[in-house]
């Protein structure tokens, strides 16, 4: 009976983990850009972001979305160059945001959009989730912080795989990771 209880606890602990799959978003001869699907949900994190803002009535946010999407396209053409990205997470991780030329606006009335990603190399970018940023930094926003923390956890798992000599650019479509 006691052993059965232990097994149930372990099973429940595994269910608290999130399964992450890597889904192709835009693959070119220069750069592979993937997004992520969590726990086999219908929509990827990129699609959720798109769905949330594509019909926005706020002209600034509509413009941000257009610029982010176009930036993804340019990155696929030119490479995920290090100079394009600012580290958003901690120095030990590779979490960044998709670069956005922000149109000047009244910040008290309009936020800006932020879409986070992991820049693995010039040839491999993983796009996560994002949202509306109305605070000075992501830590002050529960939703944005959660998106960044998810990517940090994923990046941690990817770095473990790289230390085991996994070639992510070749293998990423075939692997999934589990994060807390």
């Amino acid at each position, binding site marked *: 009976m006691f052993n059965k209880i232990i097994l149930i606890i372990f099973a429940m602990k595994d269910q608290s983990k999130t399964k992450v799959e890597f*889904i*192709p*978003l*835009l*693959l*070119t*001869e*220069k*750069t592979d850009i993937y*997004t992520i699907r969590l726990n086999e949900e219908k929509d990827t994190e*990129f*699609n959720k972001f*798109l769905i949330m803002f*594509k019909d926005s009535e706020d002209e600034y946010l509509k*413009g941000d*979305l*257009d*610029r982010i*999407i*176009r*930036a*993804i*396209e*340019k*990155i*696929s*053409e*030119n490479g995920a*160059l290090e*100079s*394009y*990205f*600012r580290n958003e997470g901690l120095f030990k991780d590779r979490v960044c945001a998709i*670069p*956005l*030329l*922000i149109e000047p606006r009244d910040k008290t009335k309009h936020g800006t959009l932020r879409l986070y990603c992991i820049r693995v190399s010039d040839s491999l970018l993983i796009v996560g989730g994002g949202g509306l940023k109305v605070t000075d930094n992501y830590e002050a926003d529960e939703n944005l912080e959660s998106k960044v923390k998810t990517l940090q956890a994923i990046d941690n798992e990817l770095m473990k795989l790289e230390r085991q000599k996994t070639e992510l650019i070749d293998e990423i479509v075939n692997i999934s990771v589990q994060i807390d």
Partner: protein
Amino acid sequence: MARIRYIDPELKKALGKVPPSIRREVGLSFDIAGRISEILKLKHLSQADLARAVGKKPALVSRWLSGTHNFTIQTLSQIEAALGVSIIHVTKARK
């Protein structure tokens, strides 16, 4: 232009709706940043070297290379003069 091997259908649909002005704005911004990066690499110069050459702070040069900077003609001219190469070309009308 890099050949596309695969594009998510929703991304492709969304790209089709980006207004031409924003397409060109982001395209130019990224291409200029990429071109400056390329020249620095070819000339074995760092961002700090460029910053010193134009008399600006390194953080500003970093912003120039981010693909999100709205360049003025003055700034582009300073960069071209410092690097000794053209970054952008203007197509002249045929006579």
